[in-house]
């Protein structure tokens, strides 16, 4: 067992290797630690949570060790969510439940408890108090700020122009210079990022 100091001095790669070697879920996947397996294939393992929120609470686990969702390759992610859908479907069919929750946490502050990325599928019943529902009204100023900044950020992420919600301009007649481009809804500057980050500091 390395000391805390040794852990701190490890490179990110060493730390990852250390976490992997000591990962409970990797041991469960290797069948070195016993678990209740409800589904298994070449890349995904589903087990019952031993401290469930409700009977039938399932953990969907990629067999490869990843710490966070963004590290997971696309095809593995597609498989994980497909299995999650099957698990949810199975709960609706086989358990006395009328709803399911998929819960994912990226990062300890979000409630991630294990260094091996996994997510929860939880059968739900009325008034089970497992998770709250959103209940806050976003202040108008913040909503406006998000509407100003996020379309351009999302467009940059997904590689498409922002949606045009204003009245469409008729196409310019031939042989006339194009009209000056309308001012974009949001300029992507560091300022706008600072603005939006400033909302939370």
């Amino acid at each position, binding site marked *: 067992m390395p000391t805390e100091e040794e852990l701190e001095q490890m490179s990110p790669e060493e730390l990852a290797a250390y976490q992997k070697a000591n990962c409970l879920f990797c041991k469960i996947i290797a069948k070195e630690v016993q678990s209740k397996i409800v589904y298994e294939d070449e890349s995904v393992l589903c087990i019952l949570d031993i401290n469930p929120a409700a009977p039938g609470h399932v953990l969907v686990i990629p067999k490869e060790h990843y710490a966070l969702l963004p590290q997971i390759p*696309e095809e593995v992610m597609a498989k994980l969510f497909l299995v999650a859908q099957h698990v949810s479907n199975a709960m609706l069919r086989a358990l006395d439940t009328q*709803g399911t929750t998929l819960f994912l946490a990226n990062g300890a502050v979000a409630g991630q408890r294990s260094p091996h990325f996994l997510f929860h599928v939880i059968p739900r019943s009325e008034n089970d108090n497992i998770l709250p529902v959103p209940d806050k009204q976003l202040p108008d100023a913040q909503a406006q700020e998000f509407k100003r900044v*996020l379309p351009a950020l999302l467009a940059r992420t997904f590689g498409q122009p922002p949606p045009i919600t204003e009245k469409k301009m008729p196409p310019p007649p031939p042989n006339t210079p194009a009209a000056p481009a309308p001012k974009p809804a949001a300029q992507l500057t560091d300022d706008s990022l600072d603005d939006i980050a400033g909302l939370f500091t």
Partner: protein
Amino acid sequence: MTCELCERMKNDALFVSDAFAVLLPKKVFLPGHLILAPRKHHVILEELSAEELSVLFGAANKISSLLFDSLQAHGTNLLVRNGIPAGQDVGHIVIDIIPRWKTDNLNLQWPPQQLPADVFEKSFSRLTAELEGNIPGHKPKEETYVMDESGGITTEEQPSPEQDIPDSQSLPEDTPTDKQAKNTPWKPPQDNRLRHLLRLP
């Protein structure tokens, strides 16, 4: 019956692609909370095809990363509230994407339980039986409910795919045969999912 969310996608979205739309939710857990919805009207998770699932959660992951960066979040949660008991509040399936900060005072943790052994075993045997032979290769199981054009729901004990599922696009081209269902020893109640579908606003 018009869907509130389908309407909002037309002029109140932050971003719209062919496959999905990103919007500000009406009620939020925290500022920066976004919702991601498939463009095609689907009520519950089980209706999404494998491809739709893959695209949707791939996008959710990218948006989650965007929130990390632009809002300097310390973590993110992805949440699917599937059905009324899970807190679904609009009749169109959405993924909640929630940025988290160390000091956000949001508690999304459920109290862990120790279940009596027989309850645990029962949920285990029912789920494994339901998932057995249902290999994600990977088609959703045959639907036991359908929604007609007007939003009403009809159901039959043994739906024949052609007659009872008008919205064939939401299903893969070849659905698994009834053989698997017949081999399942425990027959699930047919109306489990109907109960919550009917009550969606």
